[in-house]
């Protein structure tokens, strides 16, 4: 728990996701919420575990009913456990219901620009396309699609899932993403605290690179100083 807290602080994270689960009646003590200072992080409840739109809506309502956290919900609907890929249809249906109920909805999606736009049109607060399957650490595998989502989106785009190393996070931010969501790469690192710091620096570097405007790429060499007088010798 201490390593987690220190790593969260080192990462500079502003939001931390939390899930809803049945209380284990044999071990009822769990101090997650009392250990995470809500003044340091916005705790973002998610619908992880939901396999259908209905289950996701139920989890969102339970979270709101707790009165413990703001009515924000990271909407995830993952019907199968092997790849945990989100179900776009179900996510869109659940998002419509939850937006109408006043939730601030942050949906986890595959990098599908059409779905991202449909979600934006029903009033979600962000879209959270995946870089690669959650926990896979494979990095950005659909850069072109993410670029289209970022270009067309008028709401923030958060790259979620699969970012395995700091350079992946830097690359995502260089594309113009507004934020990244990272857990596995830090939580399972040999030194989570140092990895959290590395991700923080990578995110900052990538963001600054994006804001600075990346130089264009070319097929052939391009000298940065004139060469004409040399060739005339």
């Amino acid at each position, binding site marked *: 728990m201490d390593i987690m807290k220190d790593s969260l602080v080192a990462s500079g994270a502003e939001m931390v996701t939390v899930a*809803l689960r049945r*209380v284990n009646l044999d071990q009822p003590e769990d101090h997650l919420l009392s250990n995470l200072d809500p003044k340091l992080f916005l705790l973002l409840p998610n619908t992880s575990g939901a396999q259908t739109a209905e289950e996701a809506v139920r989890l969102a309502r339970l979270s709101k009913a707790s009165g413990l956290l703001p009515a924000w919900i990271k909407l995830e609907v993952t019907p199968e456990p092997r790849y945990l890929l989100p179900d776009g249809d179900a996510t869109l249906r659940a998002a419509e219901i939850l937006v109408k109920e006043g939730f601030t909805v942050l949906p986890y999606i595959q990098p599908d620009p059409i779905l991202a736009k449909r979600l934006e049109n029903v009033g979600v607060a962000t879209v959270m396309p995946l870089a690669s399957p959650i926990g896979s650490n494979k990095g950005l595998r659909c850069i072109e699609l993410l670029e289209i989502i970022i270009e067309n989106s008028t709401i923030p785009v958060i790259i979620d899932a699969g970012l395995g190393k700091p350079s992946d996070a830097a690359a995502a931010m260089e594309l113009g993403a507004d934020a990244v969501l990272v*857990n596995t790469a830090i939580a399972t690192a040999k030194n989570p605290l140092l990895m959290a710091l590395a991700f923080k620096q990578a995110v900052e570097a990538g963001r600054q690179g994006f804001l600075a405007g990346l130089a264009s790429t070319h097929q052939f060499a391009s000298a940065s100083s004139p060469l004409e007088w040399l060739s005339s010798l």
Partner: protein
Amino acid sequence: MITLNGRLLDQGNINNIESLISEHQLSASAIVVEKNGSILKKEEWPNIPVLDGDHIEIIRFVGGG
């Protein structure tokens, strides 16, 4: 008998949600209770009976995504 978090239990002398929560030594501030599919408001717990055949879920936040 009631079903609590998927487990069949003898309800004993528990007659409302509030006593069920204190029986299991749970901190009321950190949990949400659902009875037969409906979410219960905390202030209603003392008035909601626990009856034979009820399905009750007690849920809390945990870390993770």
